[in-house]
């Protein structure tokens, strides 16, 4: 009864019911945090990663997500002022690198324009934008753009200081020491600490996620995100 009511409310708010279109992306235990237990597509997500090391971790997690969204046919666009993504590495995260278009914008403010333009195009599955600074108004514009086209947008926010945005969620991905089976020497599979700091109509959480053979494996789960570096829970 309650669950029925809840999903009715969500539908009225514009959230698609589970299993429609490309939304059938499963993240295992993380799904419980999302409204309708489905990863919200057709929305703009924000990933904060000020440092270069975090950027790599965030990109890895995002690429894994996008691989699930793009499947075999989708095309995605990656917008930045300077490409640092190494195309041959994408294949390990399940994306065919030649299905990704890289846009190198000459100036920071063109990145926002390009991202909005790309988000409006229904030909794409996902758009990633590396932005250094984003205002509330700008993020609102992006959100409005995707509501028409149902493209999923990801902002990699490189700003050191966080501001309020209109994005549907905010993530922080940091690297965790990799694990090798039987304590063998060397480096094992990528492992991240995935913090969902904010999610509209969902429950934030922290997970330990591993990338294994083209899929996410959620290793451990604690319900509440650490609040020591979360100055914006009241702002969002």
């Amino acid at each position, binding site marked *: 009864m309650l669950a029925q009511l809840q999903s009715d409310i969500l539908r009225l708010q514009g959230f698609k019911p589970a299993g429609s279109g490309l939304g059938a992306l499963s993240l295992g235990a993380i799904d419980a945090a999302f409204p309708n237990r489905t990863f919200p597509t057709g929305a703009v997500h924000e990933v904060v990663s000020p440092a*270069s*090391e975090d*950027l*790599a*971790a*965030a*990109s*890895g*997690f995002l*690429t894994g997500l996008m691989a699930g969204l793009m499947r075999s*046919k*989708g*095309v995605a*666009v990656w917008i930045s002022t*300077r*490409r*640092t*993504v*190494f*195309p*041959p*590495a*994408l*294949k*390990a*995260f399940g994306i*065919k*690198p*030649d*299905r*990704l*278009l*890289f*846009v*190198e*914008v*000459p100036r920071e403010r*063109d990145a926002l*324009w*390009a991202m909005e*333009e*790309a988000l409006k*195009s*229904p*030909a*794409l*599955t996902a758009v990633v934008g590396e932005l250094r600074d984003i205002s509330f108004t700008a993020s609102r514009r992006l959100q409005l753009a995707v509501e028409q086209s149902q493209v999923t947008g990801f902002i990699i926010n490189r700003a050191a200081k966080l501001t309020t945005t209109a994005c549907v969620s905010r993530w922080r991905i*940091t*690297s*965790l*020491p*990799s694990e*090798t089976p039987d304590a063998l*020497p*060397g*480096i094992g599979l*990528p*492992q*991240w600490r995935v913090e969902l700091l904010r999610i509209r109509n969902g429950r934030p959480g922290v997970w330990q996620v591993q990338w294994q053979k083209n899929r996410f494996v959620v290793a451990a789960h604690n319900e509440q995100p650490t609040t020591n570096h979360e100055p914006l829970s009241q702002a969002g």
Partner: protein
Amino acid sequence: MARFVSIWFRYLATDWFSLPHPEYKKIPFVLRQPSHGRLIISAANAAAVRSGISCGMALADARALLPDLHVLDDEPDKIQRVLYKLAEWCMRFTPWVALDPPDGLFLDATGCAHLWGGEEKYVQEMTNKLTARGYTVRVAMADTPGAAWAVAHYAKNPGVVPAGHHIEALLPLPPEALRLEPQVVERLHKLGLHHIKQFIHLPRAALRKRFGVGFLQQLDKAVGQEREPLQPIQPVEPYHERLPCLEPIVTATGIEIALKQLLEMLCLRLQQEQKGVRAAVFKGHRVDGKVEQISIATSRASHQVSHLFKLFEIRLATIEPALGIELFVLEAPKVEPHLPQQEKMWEAGGGLDDVRLAELVDRLSNKIGERIYRYLPEEHHWPERSFREATSLQEEAMTEWRTDVHRPLHVLPVPERIEVTAPIPDYPPLLFRHKGRVHTIVKADGPERIEQEWWRQQGQHRDYYRVEDDEGNRYWLFRLGHYHDQTFQWFLHGYFS
């Protein structure tokens, strides 16, 4: 039926020198040019010709004939530029104008004369306008360029030769009218053949034997048996639309409407011919004679008015109407076949063939330039060369992307120097310092040695290590050169996720 006009500027050089000095027209006036150590006359005006002076005469002889002869230095290059300018000016009569050096023009007047109320009036208008500018001209119109040329140069009263009558017009003219080589003309005269009618009906085999193939070709060109290859000064784009305006347009809205109309005209035509635009130029001819233009390019052929309009729209503000634009021209210098697609089919799937994706790429690249990249694998071990830019959205990968080696998701555009502590040769370092931060290495893999491709570039090999520091961040380091060389250097090249 094709119609050609030949304009002969009888005294082009002297007329041009007389423009600033009208009094030169009355007195004998020649231009001189040095040739083989003496001065010869390169052009003479009408008064000088009447006194018996001709081109090619030595200046000293002419002075003996006419002591008060006015002489100036010739400038042949300038005269050729003048002829080109005149050709451009003649574009008002027809879009197709070709040069006929040294002193003539050819105009393809097919379908143009009726705008002037008939061929007589058309030629008359041309003659009047050019005479008013100060040039002595002989203008003739005929079915072939050769016949028009012959009539303009050698007929008593040049003018319009009615369609289909150009052979009759040729008959009384001398053989020079066929633009023959001097030796051939001389031989014809020696044989007593002073008019075309005397030899035009002779057997062709005999003519070829005596005067060569070139002679027959010239004859055929005049008669119309052979096409005359002429190069127009401004090639007419096969795909172009014109929109003349009654009143000069000065407002942005007006320009937008003009562009939309032209696009609709062009796209309708392209659609019927199953073609699409790859490049287009929008020109506005201003009242003051300047031409404002903007151009666009598309990544795949398109005949969508709305899409092309969007591409132009970004640049539309750069058009300066000044006093107003009286003529808009839309040209498509590059078109490609564009077969109709069942566009609905793509809507669900998307993919790289999607028209809307190409449209997005066009929109982006028209604003920020050619900065949209797609990468394909290359069979190289050297990391910087292991991929290349694709030339189009549709290009397929020739090889597979490699998955057997570990590559970092982010690489630095240029590897950055780091300081390391690596006490054991060919073992991964214990710690490294990058940008003032010390990273203690907990786990490591490697080395993976990548040699330079000596046939491309000389240099030292790289030994790559994947390392993980105590915070769990993973890096891609390499040592350039051998450990025992003492000249090796360590670099940070990328970040693993």
